[in-house]
């Protein structure tokens, strides 16, 4: 039984927010593009992992179609933003569309349980990706005037704000009745229903929050990249990344996805630099080793170490 929300989680939230606040000084202290791009990637990953953690970690529904909502957010935000809407409005619209689509799909998909839900959502996400790829096969590039006005620091601060929002959202969820109900569903859906928890309503709420955050992250992606194929943010590897980071860190905890995102991005970049030709092979093997050796993620490994030391 995991500890319910309390001082433990609040401490972690404070520590993470402090770290994010310190990162706000980075563009002033070290205005190097490579460094800012690297930290940007970590921040985007934290938002994405945390968004997946809401539905999978707290409500226990392994959503393998998560990239669809990241992609929808990116698609809508990019289209509106290039059309002249301010980026904040465009991103909000993207998140809204992603959430609405999720609720529409969710009513059907939540008829499935466990692994069937995972398979169903994976298939739905992939069908959406293929369709976007077929219909919008042209690369999306920013107009030259927008490229001229491109400032990396704007993207960096937006990523920082989104990461903070996602951590705050999950911290608020973890300590609320809503979060408690979601965890009850995760542990035993029948028992939760029997004690008066409306399972479908709560699962839809979790999905809405999760996909809303993913849609915002997609908008950030669209704001950050100068050119990409519209189907790229729909690619299942965004789902896999979110899943891997969350599980490496510790699913269903506030700090797990954050630690997982940091470790995952650092590890992936390091391996890619060190072994250029073999990096995916080594990364895949390394990853399997981590899963086999640390089945509960970093969070559980840390608890075990602490218990050993306490003895």
């Amino acid at each position, binding site marked *: 039984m995991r500890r319910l929300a309390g001082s433990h989680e609040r401490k972690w939230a404070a520590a993470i927010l402090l770290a994010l606040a310190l990162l706000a000084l980075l563009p002033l202290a070290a205005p190097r593009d490579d460094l800012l791009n690297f930290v940007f990637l970590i921040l985007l990953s934290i938002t994405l992992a945390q968004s997946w953690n809401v539905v999978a970690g707290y409500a226990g529904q*392994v959503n393998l179609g998560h990239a669809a909502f990241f992609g929808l957010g990116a698609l809508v935000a990019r289209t509106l933003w290039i059309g002249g809407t301010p980026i904040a409005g465009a991103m909000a619209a993207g998140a809204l569309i992603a959430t609405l689509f999720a609720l529409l799909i969710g009513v059907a998909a939540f008829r499935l349980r466990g692994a069937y839900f995972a*398979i*169903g959502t994976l298939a739905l996400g992939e*069908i959406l990706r293929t369709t976007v790829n077929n219909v919008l096969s042209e690369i999306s590039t920013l107009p030259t005037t927008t490229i001229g006005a491109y400032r990396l620091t704007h993207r960096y601060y937006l990523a920082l704000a989104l990461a903070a929002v996602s951590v705050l959202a999950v911290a608020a969820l973890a300590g609320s009745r809503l979060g408690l109900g979601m965890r009850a569903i995760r542990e035993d859906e029948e028992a939760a229903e029997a004690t008066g928890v409306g399972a479908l309503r709560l699962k839809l709420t979790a999905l809405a929050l999760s996909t809303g955050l993913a849609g915002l992250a997609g908008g950030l992606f669209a704001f950050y990249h100068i050119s990409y194929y519209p189907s790229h943010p729909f690619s*299942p590897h965004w789902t896999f990344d979110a899943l891997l980071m969350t*599980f490496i860190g510790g699913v269903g905890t506030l700090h797990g996805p954050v630690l997982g995102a940091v470790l995952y991005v650092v590890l992936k970049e390091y391996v890619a630099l060190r072994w250029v030709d073999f990096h*995916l092979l080594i990364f895949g*093997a390394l990853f399997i080793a981590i*899963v086999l050796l640390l*089945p509960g993620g970093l969070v559980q490994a840390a608890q075990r170490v602490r218990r050993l030391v306490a003895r």
Partner: protein
Amino acid sequence: MSVLAQQLVLGLLIGGLYGLAAAGLSLVFGVMKVLDVAHGELIMLGGYMAFFVVALVGLDPFVSLLVVIPLSLLLGLALYWGLFGFVVRADEETRVKNSLLIGFGLALALHALAVLLWTADERSIITPYGGTVLSVGDLSIPVVRLVSLGVAFALIGGLHLLLARWRWGKAIRATAEDWQAALLTGIDVRRAYLLAFAIGTGLAGAAGTLVTVGYSVSPSIGLEWTLKALIVVVLAGLGSMIGTFVGGLLLGVAEAASAAAFGGPYREVVGLVIFVIVLVVRPRGLFGR
């Protein structure tokens, strides 16, 4: 009219391969309750095995199945002992999660390995009779794909008999039904898992061979085949290999029909709609128990 009929026939022919690809996955998922998302990469490896057996030894591609299937069975044994055997020790919730993680890691590693060893180029097996086409009325049916459909059906039929008659086949089915009850009646559940995984990998190898003969193989085909197989598994439901095969045929025909009706770019949307309807109306699948 004849254009539509032609497309439906081609859809039926590829549908047989969807069914075969899904059968292995359905067996592994149904028995072990693990989701092997690297199944498509196993199909891809089977395709390369067939390619090299044909290229180096000079066997007929359909005869090469006699080499590829045993090799794939061995690969399945190795993967079970090395990786998935650890996964099935956990309870069912954790199993799905851990198998997803290991599957993604494995898929990544196998894809990268294939690119390193064999480059990212597409390859296909060329046979002397590869261009032969059977004409039935207005329809023209590529002989290689027709034979592939027959082979796929024969393999599924064989598997069905194996599960129905063979001692260990019954043990596998009992384990799929209720592993705790199976354990109580003295069935070696771990052995049933091992056999199911090896047979599933063998089927993936066979599917890979037929894909490479009728179509082509490249390191990146894995995910696409995993997804097709997963869709068929959900559409058809668990419990019947024949049902899974029919589910594959249905998907192939449905894709072809919607491509004909709505044009290429939107054909997957029709697939989505069918998929959602089946989920809502019959969540356990068309033929699921």
